[in-house]
């Protein structure tokens, strides 16, 4: 048999499996119709604003405050989720206790529960006259209708991202590595803090990024508990909705564009860190 030379550039590797054209065709047309055309509409509309207008709209003080609140509360909430999410994942992976199965399943509640329901439920709990709020009011602590309330709502929606990213990696930890640390004289705390947690860092970082990204865009669970005071507890997605209701489409478009740019830049950075980690340590998450 004579060897056939492969073409220099090949769109796809040959395969006996049929249906490539059909499957890719359906995928691409659906993707273009539903995702790409609408999103490029946004890009086109914001570029049509012109740089000057765009800059004025984007640097409006109310807009800046709203963006700062959205990104700030999402950052704090993601940090809280990293701490408690890692503890929760550890407890679920390592210990046995009654009700563990139920708790494990409950972790996904924020994925399954509609955000509006979560919003009114959290407000009921943390409002000054609510179940928990009424306990805190005498102490002078106010949660609902302040940025703290926003953080609480974002902790709720972000929790599963951290737990579900870290949990499978934790399950794969090689017991021998822990034993190796112990034989070298490391106590349990040293083993966890110097060997296990650094090994989990890429997974934790990914979980943080996912929770953060979700928190920045979150709307339903936040608007009930936030109080929505302009400049103080008004999140960027809500400001978009307000501008839309005022038929101020340029302003809504500008805020959306800024949010998307920042979010994509962050995802890009995270992806680069992941790729670097995989190359260097031979693992990512």
């Amino acid at each position, binding site marked *: 048999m004579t060897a056939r030379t492969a073409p220099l550039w090949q769109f*796809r*590797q040959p*395969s006996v*499996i*049929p*249906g*490539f054209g*059909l*499957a890719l065709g*359906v*995928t691409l047309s*659906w*993707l273009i119709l*539903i*995702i790409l055309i*609408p*999103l490029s*509409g946004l890009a086109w509309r914001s570029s049509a604003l012109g740089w000057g207008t765009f800059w004025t709209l984007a640097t409006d003080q109310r807009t800046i405050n709203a963006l700062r609140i959205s990104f700030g509360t999402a950052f704090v909430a993601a940090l809280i989720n990293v701490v*408690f999410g890692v*503890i*929760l994942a*550890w*407890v*679920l992976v*390592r*210990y046995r206790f009654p009700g563990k*199965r139920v*708790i494990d*399943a409950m*972790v996904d509640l*924020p*994925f*399954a*529960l*509609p*955000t*509006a*329901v979560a919003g*009114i439920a959290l407000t009921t*709990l943390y409002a000054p006259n609510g179940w928990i709020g009424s306990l805190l009011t005498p102490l002078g602590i106010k949660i609902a209708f302040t940025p703290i309330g926003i953080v*609480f709502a974002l*902790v709720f929606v972000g*929790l599963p*991202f951290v737990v*579900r990213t870290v949990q*499978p990696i934790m399950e794969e930890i090689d017991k021998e590595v822990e034993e190796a640390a112990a034989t070298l004289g490391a106590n349990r705390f040293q083993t966890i803090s110097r060997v296990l947690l650094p090994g989990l860092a890429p997974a934790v970082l990914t979980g943080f990024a996912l929770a953060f*990204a979700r928190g920045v*865009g979150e*709307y*339903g669970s936040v608007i009930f508990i936030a109080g929505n005071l302009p400049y103080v507890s008004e999140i*960027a*997605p809500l400001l*978009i*909705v307000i501008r*839309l209701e005022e038929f101020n*489409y340029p302003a*809504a478009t500008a805020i*959306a564009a800024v*949010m*998307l740019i920042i979010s994509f830049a962050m995802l890009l950075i995270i992806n680069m860190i992941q790729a670097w980690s995989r190359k260097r340590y031979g693992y990512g998450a």
Partner: protein
Amino acid sequence: MAHDATTTGTGNTELVRVATSESRFARYGLIGIALCFVALFLVLPLAAVFTEAMRNGPGEFFTVLSDPETFAAIELTLLVAVIAVPLNLVFGVAAAWAIAKFEFKGKAFLTTLIDLPFSVSPVISGLVFVLLFGSHSLLGPWLQSHGIQILFAVPGIVLATVFVTFPFVARELIPLMQEQGTSDEEAALSLGASGWQTFWYVTLPNIKWGLLYGVLLCNARAMGEFGAVSVVSGHIRGLTNTMPLQVEILYNEYNFVAAFAVATLLALLALLTLVLKSLLEMKYSAQIAASRRH
């Protein structure tokens, strides 16, 4: 040998504590922290929904639910899910087939594009359709002159829902089908099966539980989506209000019992989703993709 039989902390008869476990104190402390956190952020909110709905007794609960507007919201929510989920199911299978069974240029980029809706705020997902079909847009005047209503009507709600739930099925199927490889399909083809027969008799049985898992999550999001739908719906009572929007309106009118009554239905849907999801994970973990995110 026998590594797995190592007692993890329960052995009181051991002379020295096993090297790879924490002290009893630390263990109970961590379990305590985790349980408090779960109670505070997950269990209590869920309990609040049911308690508030039953505040004035089950009689009022059912009266509220039989309200025609609420009924219309339930109908619309089901209708949207019935349209959006199958559309994304077909797309998900096609995308997974193309991405998992073939090697082609730009595959990684395509996968990233499919995941795009996850990193877009729901409000922006709604906004893009307002910008596309609104009266001031390019398409707007043309649509108006032909009497086609997309925004503030069912088509807009369906489009926004499809956008938001776009990646769910594909995301579940791609890693699963990649794991399974192509040898089963090649075997079927070598035995003379046609392409469709191969898909129907070989591929589909292999992915059915993963597919169901993806559909389950897709459906939960489709029925519960709030932000995107809120932007495109126009909040016309009895016509373009889905259940989550109905919850918002009732709540903002201080009709708390009614708001929580509708919320109860959505919470029950969420619980049902969680139970089915856990069952699938327990019974068919091997036939569900390793990545359980989303």
